[in-house]
């Protein structure tokens, strides 16, 4: 948008509505931003699931190729990030469901739910990867 200027060309100082930068970051605000960021990450990450499923439906050679790509350390990092983002977005979604009912809006509960979502998602993601990397897997 074009900036408003007076006829002399100097910038008019208009009052602006308060925006993100002027607020001290609170945990619920950080979680709100993270909810959107993890959602966007999952959006693009769904390509990985589609690719993996398509590879399984294509044949053993192509599946082996995709598995070998997923086994490289940058992709392992991405997949770990994907695991965390999925769980964090899920837990955040539950938090929003609670708030949708109108409950849990006192400061104590807001802080508890917000800190809870980051703690739970981090622990769950780490636990899943520790289990899988230690040769977890279940015989099917």
């Amino acid at each position: 948008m074009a900036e408003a200027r007076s006829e002399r060309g100097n910038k008019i100082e208009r009052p602006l509505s308060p925006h993100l930068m002027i607020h001290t970051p609170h945990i619920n605000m950080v979680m709100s931003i993270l909810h959107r960021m993890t959602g966007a990450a999952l959006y693009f990450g769904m390509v990985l699931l589609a690719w993996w499923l398509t590879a399984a439906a294509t044949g053993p050679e192509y599946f082996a190729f995709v598995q070998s790509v997923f086994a490289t350390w940058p992709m392992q990092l991405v997949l770990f990030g994907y695991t965390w983002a999925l769980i964090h977005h899920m837990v955040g979604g539950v938090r929003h469901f609670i708030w949708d009912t109108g409950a849990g809006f006192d400061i104590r509960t807001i802080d508890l739910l917000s800190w809870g979502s980051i703690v739970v998602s981090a622990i769950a993601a780490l636990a899943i990867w520790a289990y899988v990397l230690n040769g977890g897997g279940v015989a099917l």
Partner: protein
Amino acid sequence: MMMRTPLKNVRGLGSAKEGADHFWKQRLTGAANLVLSIFLLGLLICLAGADYATVKATLARPFVALPLLLLVVSAAVHMRIGMAVIIEDYVHGEAMKIALLMLNSFFSILVGAASALAVLKLSFGG
């Protein structure tokens, strides 16, 4: 003076003509995704390190394929709405906004359809 009939008010559903449809669909698919994503996580944990034959046979099982199919459809709807909201929030140029909203729909449908096709192909013995 109120010139509209009550019926018109209900039918109109506001300026977007959709009322709370977006809001509701996002929560409906969100609830579905919550359950189905837990299933997906469990499935992927079980399949970690499995060979091709096991993966193929597992994904072909009806009780695996059904929730997987539901998940990719529900997730596609959810991600399309979510990204549309992000685009509407941050992109203010009308042409760019419409172009990105179209791309968003194409992308979400493509990812959902590709995943669904793969699951169906595995299910039907491909």
